[in-house]
C-alpha cells in the first residue's frame, strides 16, 4: 500500500514536470513553488524527489533529493559519457534522476561566484571508489549547460591511454603519436554537445591539413570539427586546434568555457600502449594527452576546470588509493597544483533513505523485506552507505 500511494504522489509530480517542460524554462518558477510546498508535507513518508529542474536553483533544502533530467538534455549533453551502470539504470527506469548531494552543491556555489577575470580555478573531485564522483560531475555539467556555457567534456581520460588499436605518428609533430579513432569519436560528441557554439566561434589562424585542404582564418569552428570527423587521419590535430582556439578565445569573453575531465589521473600515469618496436609509450608522447594537459593548465581565464580522479580505470595503481597525491603521482600533483580538492564521501543517512525510497518508487526492490526497517539496516550494513555498492546490491533484489 505504501509503495502504491507513494507512486501515485510521484506520478502526479511527474505529470507536472511534463507540462513544465513544454512551457519552457521560465514557467517552472511559478509552478515549482506550490509543488515544492507539497514536498515538506510528504516528509513523514520519506520523500525522495524534487521537482526542481534547474540545477541553478538547487540549494541546501534539496539535498538528498532526486531531480529529473529530461531525456532530450541527456542526449545532447551526455551522448557517450555516462558510467555504464547509470546508463543501464536510465534505460530501465526510462528517466534520468540524479541525487543532489553536498559536494555538487558546494561546487555549484563556487561556480556561481566565480570571477571570470581571474585565471581558471581547478576543482578536483576525489573520493573512494563508488562514492559518486562521476555523477557529481554530470550534475555540474548539466548546470553549466543550462547556464549556456561551452562544455568540453572528456568522459574518461583512461580510454585514451589504454587499448588503442591504431597509433600513427603525428602529422604535426614527428615525435608524438596520434590516436585517430578516439579523437574522431570525441569530436563527434563535442559536436553534439555544443552545436550552437560551433557556428559562433571563428578560427583565429589558418590551418593547413594537407595539400588539398585547409581552413581559412575566420571560418567557423564547425568546419574544423567537420574536417576532423571526415578526415580521420587529421582528427587528433583537429582536436588540438579546437582546444587551442577555445583556450585563446575564452579569455576574450564571448562565451564561458567549462573543461570537465573524468579520470584525470590518466594524464600523468603510465600507459599500456606500445609502439611497433614494443617500447612503452609515455603519456606525453600522445598528442591528445599533450593537448589536454595544456588545456588543464590554468593559464587562461573565462571559465573553470573541474576534474575527477578515478581509480577504477587507472593503470598500475592500488585498489585502495583515492587521495590526489596517490593517484596523480608527484608529476601530476605538481602540474595541477594549486587546486581546490572536494571530497565526495558515502551517503549520509538521509541520502541513503532517499536512495532506497527512489528505488522503491520505481519498483526496483522486489524483496518483501526491502521496505522494512530491518531490511534497510541490512542494506546499510552491507553497502556501508556506498552508492556504487548499494546500487549493485539492489540490482539483485
Amino acid at each position, binding site marked *: 500500500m505504501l509503495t502504491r500511494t507513494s507512486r501515485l504522489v510521484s506520478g502526479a509530480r511527474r505529470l507536472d514536470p511534463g507540462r513544465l517542460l513544454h512551457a519552457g524554462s521560465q514557467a517552472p518558477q511559478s509552478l515549482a513553488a506550490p509543488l515544492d510546498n507539497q514536498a515538506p508535507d510528504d516528509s513523514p513518508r520519506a520523500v525522495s524527489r524534487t521537482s526542481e529542474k534547474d540545477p541553478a536553483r538547487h540549494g541546501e533544502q534539496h539535498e538528498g533529493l532526486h531531480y529529473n533530467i529530461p531525456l532530450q538534455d541527456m542526449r545532447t549533453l551526455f551522448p557517450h559519457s555516462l558510467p555504464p551502470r547509470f546508463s543501464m539504470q536510465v534505460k530501465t527506469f526510462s528517466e534520468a534522476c540524479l541525487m543532489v548531494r553536498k559536494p555538487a552543491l558546494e561546487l555549484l556555489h563556487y561556480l556561481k561566484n566565480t570571477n571570470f577575470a581571474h585565471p581558471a580555478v581547478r576543482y578536483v573531485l576525489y573520493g*573512494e571508489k563508488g562514492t559518486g564522483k562521476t555523477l557529481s560531475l554530470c550534475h555540474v555539467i548539466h548546470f553549466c549547460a543550462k547556464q549556456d556555457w561551452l562544455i568540453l567534456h572528456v568522459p574518461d581520460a583512461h580510454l585514451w591511454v589504454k587499448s588503442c588499436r591504431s597509433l600513427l605518428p603525428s602529422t604535426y609533430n614527428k615525435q608524438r603519436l596520434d590516436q585517430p579513432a578516439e579523437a574522431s569519436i570525441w569530436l563527434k560528441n563535442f559536436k553534439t554537445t555544443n552545436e550552437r557554439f560551433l557556428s559562433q566561434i571563428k578560427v583565429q589562424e589558418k590551418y593547413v591539413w594537407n595539400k588539398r585542404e585547409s581552413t581559412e582564418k575566420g571560418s567557423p569552428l564547425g568546419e574544423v570539427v567537420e574536417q576532423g570527423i571526415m578526415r580521420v587521419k587529421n582528427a587528433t590535430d583537429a582536436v588540438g586546434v579546437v582546444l587551442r582556439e577555445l583556450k585563446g578565445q575564452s579569455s576574450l569573453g564571448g562565451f564561458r568555457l567549462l573543461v570537465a575531465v573524468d579520470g584525470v589521473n590518466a594524464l600523468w600515469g603510465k600507459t599500456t600502449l606500445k609502439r611497433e618496436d614494443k617500447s612503452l609509450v609515455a603519456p606525453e608522447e600522445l598528442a591528445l594527452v599533450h593537448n589536454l594537459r595544456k588545456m588543464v593548465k590554468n593559464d587562461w581565464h573565462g571559465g573553470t576546470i573541474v576534474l575527477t580522479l578515478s581509480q577504477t580505470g587507472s593503470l598500475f595503481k592500488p*585498489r*585502495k588509493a583515492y587521495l590526489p597525491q596517490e593517484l596523480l603521482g608527484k608529476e601530476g600533483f605538481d602540474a595541477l597544483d594549486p587546486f581546490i580538492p572536494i571530497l565526495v564521501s558515502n551517503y549520509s543517512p538521509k541520502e541513503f533513505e532517499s536512495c532506497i525510497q527512489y528505488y522503491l518508487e520505481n519498483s526496483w526492490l522486489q524483496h518483501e523485506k526491502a521496505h522494512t526497517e*530491518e531490511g534497510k*539496516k*541490512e542494506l*546499510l*550494513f*552491507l*553497502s*556501508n552507505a*556506498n552508492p556504487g*555498492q548499494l546500487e*549493485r*546490491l539492489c540490482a539483485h533484489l
Partner: protein
Amino acid sequence: MAAPCVFWGTAVSYRLFLGGRVSLALRQGVWKAAAAELQILRLRHTTGVTAKKNVAALKRETYTVDFIKKQIEEFNIGKRHLANMMGEDPETFTQEDIDRAIAYLFPSGLFEKQARPIMKHPEQIFPKQRAIQWGEDGRPFHFLFYTGKQSYYSLMHEAYGKLLDVEKRQNQLQAKGLFSEKTKTKDLIGSRWLIKEELEEMLVEKLSDQDYAQFIRLLERLLTVECSAEEEEFVQRFRRSVTVQSRKQLIEPLQYDGQGMAFSTSEGKRKSAKAEAIVYEHGSGRIKVNGIDYLLYFPVTQDREQLMFPFHFLDRLGKHDVTCTVSGGGRSSQAGAIRLAMAKALCSFVTEEEVEWMRQAGLLTADPRVRERKKPGQEGARRKFTWKKR
C-alpha cells in the same frame, strides 16, 4: 551339527576344570565367600554356548588373580618411582599427575590418543571378567545361577524386595495415620539413568532391551513412592549426572576504556586465520579491519554478509562499533574468524538466553574444518587418479 559340538565343548571344559581343580583348591575357601558378590576376578572357562572351536575359547586371555595382583603391585611401585623421578611427593601422586608425567617423558606424535603410551591402574586396563560361578562340588554359588542371567535377576529381586518393604512401611504409616505426602523431583534433574551398555558393563553380563526396560521401569516405580535414605542411595547408584552444555560457554568480562565506554575483546580462528575483535558498546555500526574500513577490506559481498550475521541475529545492526585485527588465511577464512571473534565478544553485552540462542545458531562454535591431507597414490585428498581399464 551344533548340538554335538556343544556337548563336546562342555565335556572338554569339564575335563579342563578337573585338571585345574588342584591348583584352585587353595583358593576355594576365599572365593566361596567372595563369589556371592559380583567381583572382578579372572575367567577360568565359559559356561553356556561355547564356540565351535574350543581352541579359540582356550586362547582367550585369562588373567589369574595372582597376575592381576602382581600388576597392581608393580603399578604402585612404578607410581612411586615416577613420583621420585618427577621430584614430587609419592604419597600425593594422583592419576592426572601420572598422565602428565608420562606425556612429558614419552612424547608421542601419534594422532590416535589411545595409541599413545599410558600408565593406568590395572583395573582400568585389563577387562573385567566373570568369577567362577560354582564350587568344588559343581554346585553354583548363586541361587539364581540356572536362570542364565544371575546378576540381572538378583538385581531385579533386590529392587522388588525394596519396593515391597517401602509399600509395607507406607501401609503401616497409613494405618497409624502418620502418612504424609511428599514428592521429590529435584533428584531427577541433571541426571539420567544408566544406558544399557553401562548396565551391562556393571553386571558383566549380556542383557536384552526388554530386560533393560523392565529394570528401569522398576526403578522409576521405586522413585514414585516415598523411600528412605538407603533406598535413595540404591537408586542413585544407577543414575549418572548430565552437565548442561551451554554452561560451558565462557563469557568475557567487560572492560572500560578511558572515556568510560564499555568494550569487550575476544579472539576467533578459522582454518589458518586468527582474528581479534574489540566490540564497543555504543556506536554507529562502523567496523575497521586492520585499520581499513570493512567495505574496502572485503570487497566481496559474501564476506560482508558473514560479518553481518552476529549483529543481524541479535538485532543490533547499527549499535556497535568494532575494531579488529586479522592475519593469516584467505579472504573467506579471515571473514569467518572475525565473525567468530565478534560473536564471542558480543556475549558479554547480551543476556544468557541470547547466548544460548547464539550457540544453537552455531555462532560461537569454531569451525573445525581444515584442509585435508593429500594421500600418496591419490591425486588429492579424495580424488583418485584416472582409472584406466588397461
